């Protein structure tokens, strides 16, 4: 699913600390189809930077990055947008829901940017409700995201990420804002989704229990992948 070779990424800084800030200095790793991969590392090590590249939000890097057969750096803005729209799904630490829309409209947001084959409003709402049921918040249909608990918000965000049946879910510290009980429930949900639909998971986390549950752990240290293996190895 993912093949990364020699990924280098640096930020150009302005102002007092003007200059180049190298963050990734040659990252290599693979994630197989249907795998559950955890990305770990210290704060500031470049995990979010790597996810932004994987998610097609940033194509200013060097090296080779192929996701679902697409070489991301060569895609146009329209192609990258279609990729974000349907090939992958994003889940963020801060949920990033739109508070002025209903829960269903939040889930169906990707449908508004779909380029091939528009769906009717009814079809969109039906799909949104079905997904809310899948992630376990069917009782929140019609509510506003503002009225939901943290765990429910993250379930809603996951439902949105699943809207176009993506091949890959990219999650940046999805349990970082949750208490341990909610976090455990979200991890269970990820595993269930992977088992039921075969979606590939790439999850950035600080949470040792997530890393323990992963098929593969990718640790970033000093801009390179320090160790890549199964979750149990890390724990050991």
């Amino acid at each position, binding site marked *: 699913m993912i093949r990364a070779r020699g990924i280098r990424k640096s930020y150009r800084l302005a102002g007092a600390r003007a200059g180049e800030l190298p963050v990734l200095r040659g990252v290599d790793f693979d994630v197989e189809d249907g795998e559950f991969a955890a990305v770990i590392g210290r704060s500031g090590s470049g995990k*979010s930077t790597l996810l932004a590249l994987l998610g097609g939000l940033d194509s200013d890097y060097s090296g080779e990055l192929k996701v679902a057969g697409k070489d991301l750096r060569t895609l146009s*803005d*329209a192609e990258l947008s279609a990729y*974000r729209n*349907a090939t992958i799904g994003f889940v963020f630490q801060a949920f*990033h829901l*739109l508070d002025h829309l209903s829960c269903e409209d939040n889930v169906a947001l990707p449908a*508004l*940017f779909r380029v091939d084959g528009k769906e009717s409003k009814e079809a969109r709402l039906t799909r949104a409700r079905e997904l809310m049921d899948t992630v376990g918040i069917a009782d929140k249909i019609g509510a506003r995201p503002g009225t939901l608990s943290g765990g429910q918000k993250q379930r809603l965000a996951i439902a949105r990420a699943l809207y176009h049946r993506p091949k890959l879910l990219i999650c940046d510290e999805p349990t970082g804002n949750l208490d341990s009980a909610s976090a455990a429930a979200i991890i269970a949900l990820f595993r269930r989704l992977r088992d039921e639909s075969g979606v590939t998971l790439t999850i950035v986390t600080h949470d040792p229990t997530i890393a323990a549950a992963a098929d593969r752990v990718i640790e970033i240290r000093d801009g390179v992948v320090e160790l890549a293996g199964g979750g149990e190895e890390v724990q050991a």
Partner: protein
Amino acid sequence: MSSLGAIVRGNLRNNAVHFALASVGVIVGIAAFAFFLALGAGVREVVLGKIFPLDQLEVIAKSMTLDVGPVSLGLASDVLDEKAAEQLRGVAGVRGVYPKMKLTAPAIGLGGKQIIGNDIRTELIIDGVDPALVQGEFSGSDQFRVVPDPLATTPTACAADSACPKDMYCGKPYRGGPGKVCRDYVPVIASPHMLEIYNGSLRRAYNLPRLNPDFLIGVTLDMQVGASMVQAAEKDELLYEKLKLVGFSDKAVPLGVTLPLSQVARYNVHFGAPEAATRYHSIIVKIESKDQVAAVAKAIEELGFEVTDGGAEQAGFLISVFVLVFSLLSTIIVGIAAVNIMHVFFMLVYERQREIGIMRAVGARRSDIQRIILGEAACVGLIAGAIGVGLAYATSRVFDYVSAQHLPDFPYKPETYFAFSVDLVALALGFAAGFCVLGAWLPARRAARMDPAAVLTGR
């Protein structure tokens, strides 16, 4: 696109207060724009529609003049005759040709008691027009026709009007002399301009009653042709007639009375030569459409005639200048408003970074973001423009009301000074939307180029 419309609608609702504040300038600017444009159009309608009708031209014979210092000497002056009328009829774009003839003998009028309480004696300016020119223009226009020649019939003596057939009066014989005979009234028409000027200014200067056109119809005036207060006629003879006003028409001579052409020709032949019957002083040329006026005027001049300038061109030009100056001012207001719109959109784009980032993350292209923001700007512009036009319309009504209630009468005082056309409204709305889109252009570009990763991963 329709799905982006849903986002635009939602954003408009969410940011209604911001947009309302941002659009105040646009509303004011568009209100000024629509107001002055409508004022220009309204005034143009009065000036070019009523004061200087534009669908006709008056053609006169070309006069050759020699300017010697301050003196200009008339060297030669061709007359207009039936041949000239025929030539003009052949010009493309001409709908009709109507000769006019001046009375070449002096005439005086006596009357006015019915109207202003006293008889007045006045030199009359008499013009003749082809009755066909005014046919159907006012009720009773069919009465405007030449009366039977009194010299060709034997008059019946009478003592009072009642002794004569209906529509005739008992009065002095045509060529004077003792006794009274039954006579036809000579129908005349007058110019509404005369009435306007009288009611609008003269009346108040002399403290006379206001005249109502309907009330004036049927008024009579004694006329003596060949008589003059200043100059004796060539023939030492007078013709006696009684004139009766049958209607008002702007085809009538502006100051004076207008008779059927053949009636004037009859007097001119009587006091002059037989050729006087077809010696026209000018010819009114009616034109098929206003757009052809210039072309027809040019063709007529190429035939060797002269087109009198009624002042319409200068008046039209002045109005255009007025409209131009004020629409320029309004454009500046709207332009400043667009800068304000730009500031507000920059602020909104900054405030909505997260929302824009979310949309990008779920598949919005840069162009989608740009379209959403420009769509919002266009909607804000359309709404502000509609409010502005409404404001302009309301202001115009207040103006018209104040004018009707509190301004004294003046010539051509219109009921409304404004003309709001569909075109004008469409122009104002397009203008408002266009300027808002222009103002939002840079903010929309910035939004489209924003780095979504930085906002979404919490930096």
